[in-house]
């Protein structure tokens, strides 16, 4: 603050050096001898600029978005996924076929202008059924990830922040849920509550929130020892305020990354259940039921299996690329 006479001080020092050199070497004089102190003025307050910051200010999210957009693979995944989502939402609207409209005159037809991906054994248009399947698969993926996130953040956050005995008890509950194979729950719930989307969501969510809870807990355990959480306590912030406004906002990176890996997991589970036969029931379609329906004719009409499998692959690939990209973008330590 007070040391900002730098510019003119420097000049002053330079002159001093040249003066002493003149004296030492005893060469010709009167170069700078008439310089006196009153030629120098301290820098005016308004001219001082020592606290200036040159770098452009960026928020954490803006910074992460910039890094994410530079990641080609992640951006490709993002574009493909957006296309899949848009197609799933708007595709069926513009098609004159419906997911359950049967046409006995053209069963098991191949690709044509009328039916882009051909028809199945009842003459239903496979492309439209794929889009309807995408609606269900993506909805299961996103909704269950959302529920997992809410439950996992609340549970893991509270467990990690309280610590001690409460944490011990809450984590043992998590261990118990974790110890029982999740497919067991899911199949039992499907049998008890019937084959519909609601019971699939309940089945997936009842066990998979624990991994989010664990991640959030370990992040909170780490963050709560940092000084800014003590600082928040000292200025009088309540426990809830510290946890939700200070700690969780800093755990956002790992939470978002876990989330993007949870979506493909849920899509996978749903597809598997439908394939095994306990998922969505006919005439509704998900990608899993499409594969299941076509399985019997795999030798004769292999393409009927290939389309839904391809849809699953492309979606999960793009989700994984997005997840990788986000984890790079949100973790500044990986910044090159």
């Amino acid at each position, binding site marked *: *603050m007070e040391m900002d006479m730098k510019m003119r001080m420097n000049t002053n020092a330079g002159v001093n050096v040249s003066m002493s050199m003149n004296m030492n070497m005893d060469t010709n004089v009167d170069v700078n001898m008439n310089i006196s102190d009153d030629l120098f003025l301290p820098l005016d307050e308004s001219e001082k600029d020592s606290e200036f910051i040159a770098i452009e200010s960026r928020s954490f999210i803006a910074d992460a978005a910039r890094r994410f957009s530079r990641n080609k693979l992640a951006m490709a995944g993002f574009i493909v996924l957006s296309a899949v989502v848009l197609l799933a939402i708007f595709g069926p609207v513009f098609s004159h076929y419906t997911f359950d409209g049967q046409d006995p005159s053209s069963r098991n037809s191949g690709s044509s202008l009328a039916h882009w991906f051909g028809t199945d054994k009842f003459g239903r248009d496979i492309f439209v059924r794929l889009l309807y399947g995408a609606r269900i698969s993506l909805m299961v993926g996103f909704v269950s990830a959302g529920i997992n996130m809410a439950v996992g953040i609340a549970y893991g956050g509270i467990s990690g922040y309280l610590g001690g005995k409460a944490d011990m008890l809450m984590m043992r509950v998590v261990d118990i849920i974790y110890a029982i194979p999740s497919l067991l729950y899911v199949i039992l719930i499907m049998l008890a509550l019937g084959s519909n989307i609601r019971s699939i969501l309940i089945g997936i969510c009842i066990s998979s929130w624990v991994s989010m809870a664990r991640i959030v807990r370990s992040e909170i355990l780490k963050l709560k020892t*940092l*000084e*800014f959480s003590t600082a*928040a306590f000292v200025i*009088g*912030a309540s426990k809830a305020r510290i946890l939700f406004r200070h700690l969780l906002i800093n755990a956002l990176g790992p939470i978002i990354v876990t989330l993007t890996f949870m979506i493909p997991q849920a899509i996978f589970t749903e597809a598997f259940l439908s394939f095994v036969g306990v998922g969505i029931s006919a005439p509704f379609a998900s990608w899993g039921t499409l594969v299941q329906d076509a399985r019997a004719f795999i030798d004769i009409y292999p393409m009927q299996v290939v389309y839904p499998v391809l849809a699953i692959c492309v979606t999960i690939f793009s989700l994984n690329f997005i997840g990788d990209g986000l984890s790079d973008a949100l973790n500044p330590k990986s910044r090159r």
Partner: protein
Amino acid sequence: MNTATAEVQNAAETFEATGARGEADALFRVEGLSKFFEVQKSGFAPKKYLKAVDRISLSVGKAETLGIVGESGCGKSTLGRAILQIHKPTAGKVFFHGIELTGLSEKQMAPFRRRMQMIFQDPYASLNPRYTVGDIIEEPMVIHKLYPPAERRRRVQELLLLVGLKPDHIRRYPHEFSGGQRQRIGIARTLATEPDFIVCDEPISALDVSIQAQIINLLEKIQRESGVSYLFIAHDLSMVRHISHRIGVMYLGSMVEYGPVELVYGAPLHPYTRLLLSSEPIADPKRARATHVHIPEGELPSPIDAPPGCPFCSRCAYILPECTASRPPDYRQPDGRTVRCYQYSQRRRQQRRAFGVADITATQ
């Protein structure tokens, strides 16, 4: 229970309304404060305790700076945190404006939280990286509902100017600042609630020397202008001497010597204080060569499950029989300071006087 709560509530209200001082003239008074941490090696072994802070008493007056020095791990920071009730003390009492803080719930503490603040050691860890500077400094005012919301931003800019930053830094993030600038942001946050008492927990040890002076000058300026009191924790002896009015020397959780800064630095009594001060580097090489530095023998004992005697007895050159038997109490000296050493008990001092032996201070 209810009457007690009401009493505290009343006291808090009068305090809020008038800012009235209690009977005790000291702004902050600490009596026999202890903080033990439970250390568990295994579930079956008997519990062990780490005595981080052991029966410490001190007081801080208005516009006064109390310096706390001691080597790493001696419990300086724990003392500061126990005083601010960040760590609930194991024993002892803390009075602020004459009102006892120990045993208050967080809700009852709220009006006091506003008046006692803390500056942290690590300016890189003490600011929430996701908040802008404006949010960070504004938050205490939001929590304590201090100004009308519309005025808070203007107040933040005043505080930024006060600590020598620019008002337009308000929208920037902590990672865009240097260590010294960040520490000044932390100080601005601390000042947002206009506290009477600030614990400075090694506020300069993470900064380089030129910036250290900047921060110290700022702290002194704030004290001159607002009359705030500091508990200044540091291990830089010359800096503590510069800023403090009184000083406490800590060793393994004990306050071994406590008194005015000129006395403690000028004529240290406790053997540890003398050791500590003789280890301070001397800036003049001629004088440094002439000075004999006494290097202690023996190891720093583990603070976990420490033996019954004086914690310094394994390294002390003036050991007495009673030193290994029990922990010494605080002995008040004629000049007003307290020393936790058997050499300065009434009996030992009288003995020395009777035999015409000089105090150990004289035999350096």
